[in-house]
């Protein structure tokens, strides 16, 4: 095979080298398209504009949470506390704003500060104390959640005390789409652009892609990992605020259990669990895929119980595909590892 044809097939191949990585993003889109087709066939009402809007609305907050989680997953770690951060921020911030109405215009700022701090703590545990991220965020999941009831004493926050502008936002519709969708869109784009065009974003990907090389080039892993967790905390806080405003009556269990969905969205969206690969845009699409599956299952009148089963299976499938993709993509540069002992 002449060199020219070889390069061509490599460039356009979706199963080898860089093409494999590109192929995965397209794969998610194709998967989404397939889902839409299948559900539409099973129930034509699925394909209505109203339904589509409903799906996007459900996906919005999940997409925001998934965007934050992506930052952490890109470094090769996990954040299981995302739901607790969301719940804590929503509860505390809205409680404060209810008691001190002067602060109502600033709820977003307060939320970001709190969320950033919580995320920073996560980063500290993982990168400075070197606690494996599973354990660390499993711990903070319950610490942050526990703090809510400690703070609030099981009191519920009623929608009456929420800042009116946030309640309006939850119900507003801009240019035909719910305001939340636009907000999510903005968050995703901003994060995506930062990762692409800010040196820190490139460092993040570099570290996730090859931590040893990153060390070799003097990248501070502490800085990168802590930064990722802090960013995730800030973004989760934003999502928490939106969720709280949508739900109206907030108790200490808000957003508990959302971790599984967020991770599913991230993984399905093509963000590699091994780090360094994937994009927030993919994660957002993953959120849409999940919302589509949930909505579709309801439309097709499948029991809610199957949803958990499908979500779980989807995660495993997505990771398996990811493993394959990574193996094929990295084939050339890891030639030396041919005799890797398998275990």
């Amino acid at each position, binding site marked *: 095979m002449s060199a020219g044809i070889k390069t061509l097939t490599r460039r356009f191949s979706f199963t080898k080298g860089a093409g494999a990585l590109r192929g995965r993003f397209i794969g998610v889109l194709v998967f989404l398209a397939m889902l839409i087709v299948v559900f539409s066939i099973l129930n034509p009402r699925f394909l209505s504009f109203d339904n589509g809007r409903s799906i996007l609305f459900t996906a919005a907050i999940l997409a925001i949470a998934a965007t934050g989680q992506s930052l952490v997953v890109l470094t090769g770690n996990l954040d299981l506390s995302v739901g607790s951060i969301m719940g804590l921020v929503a509860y505390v911030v809205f409680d404060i704003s209810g008691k001190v109405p002067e602060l109502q215009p600033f709820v977003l700022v307060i939320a970001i500060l709190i969320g950033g701090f919580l995320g920073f703590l996560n980063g500290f545990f993982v990168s400075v104390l070197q606690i494996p991220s599973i354990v660390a965020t499993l711990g903070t999941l319950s610490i942050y959640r526990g703090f809510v009831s400690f703070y609030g004493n099981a009191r519920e926050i009623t929608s009456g005390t929420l800042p009116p502008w946030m309640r309006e936002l939850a119900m507003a519709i801009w240019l035909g789409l719910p305001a939340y969708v636009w907000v999510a869109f903005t968050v995703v784009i901003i994060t995506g652009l930062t990762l692409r065009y800010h040196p820190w974003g490139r460092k993040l990907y570099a570290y996730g892609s090859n931590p040893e090389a990153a060390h070799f080039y003097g990248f501070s892993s502490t800085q990168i990992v802590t930064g990722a967790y802090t960013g995730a905390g800030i973004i989760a806080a934003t999502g928490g605020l939106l969720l709280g405003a949508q739900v109206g009556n907030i108790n200490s269990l808000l957003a508990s259990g959302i971790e599984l969905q967020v991770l599913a969205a991230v993984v399905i969206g093509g963000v590699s669990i091994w780090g360094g690969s994937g994009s927030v845009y993919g994660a957002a699409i993953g959120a849409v895929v999940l919302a589509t599956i949930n909505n579709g299952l309801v439309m097709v009148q499948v029991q809610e119980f199957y949803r958990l*089963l499908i979500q779980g299976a989807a995660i495993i499938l997505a990771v398996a595909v990811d493993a394959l993709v990574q193996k094929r993509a990295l084939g050339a540069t890891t030639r030396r590892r041919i005799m890797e002992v398998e275990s």
Partner: protein
Amino acid sequence: MKLTLRSWRWELILVVLIIFAAIWSSTLSPYFLDPVNLLNSSQFFVIFSLMAFGLFPIVVQGEIDISLASTLAVGSVMIGKLAVSGIPMVVGLPLTLLVCAALGAINGILVAVAGLPSLVVTLGTLGAYRGIAFIIAGDIGVTGIPEEYLTLGSARVGIVPVSVILVVVVAGLLTVLMAFTRFGRYSYSIGSNHRASRMAGVPVAATRIGAYALGGASAGFAGLIWVAQYQSARGDNADGTILFVVTAVVLAGVSIKGGTGHAPAVLLAIVLLGTLQTGMKLANVPGTSQTLVIGSLLIISIGVPRLVEIARDKIAALKPAQETTTIKHVEVETRV
């Protein structure tokens, strides 16, 4: 092998902490130390003990399984359904254990053969198996369970509940398994260095799958206890309890990276956590605050030793560099 004082160091610390916790709890309520009450409260923790025992070999091998609570639910609802269909326990129990072991084995195959990271796999099966539990149980779950299946919930030997005795027996069996069998040897070596283990001819994949299957089976057995204690089974049984179980294993001094850990310490860790939790209940601490404490314990139990290590390294780095080669004779089975 001499069992020196040093190798039981972690257990000693746990025992001391248990004593402190017991003292604290008894100051909160005079009823705490009443033997009948104690044994009644301890029944509550039987389920967690069994799951922790099942998790132990997996963590020793350097992996994790957070789907055990979901496997428990599958076990409990399956037993419930089998029970109300009139199937005798002598058939129902082994069948359930087999199914739960199979669920565990699926985790094991995905990890050991497909090479997928265990956290994500079991995160996926956590959801998937929970879904299966719901599907089997239906909306309302299972009630009206025949007497035969409920014996373990209430049977006693004197004042001691049988289930508590069971826990002690299983703890003993686990200790024997990990300290005196081939499986135990292979597990520790895989957790220490799976590559070198494979080089040495250790059947890594099979041992891994075995550990996961064992974990699944113990979760299934915990499901039986659940049914026996609560006389019902629902799809959401044990939801969220995995934190407690993981905390217990970590608190027992088992390194999450694998290769170390003493089975008896797991039992002690559960006793410690149980004492603390019972005390908190007596002090009317709300449920989620209890989890706050547990979560903090998890982080502290790993974080503090690390902080000490970091401090020690920083101090050592300040001293002038010397070329010393000291050969240390260190005892076997050192912890993290």
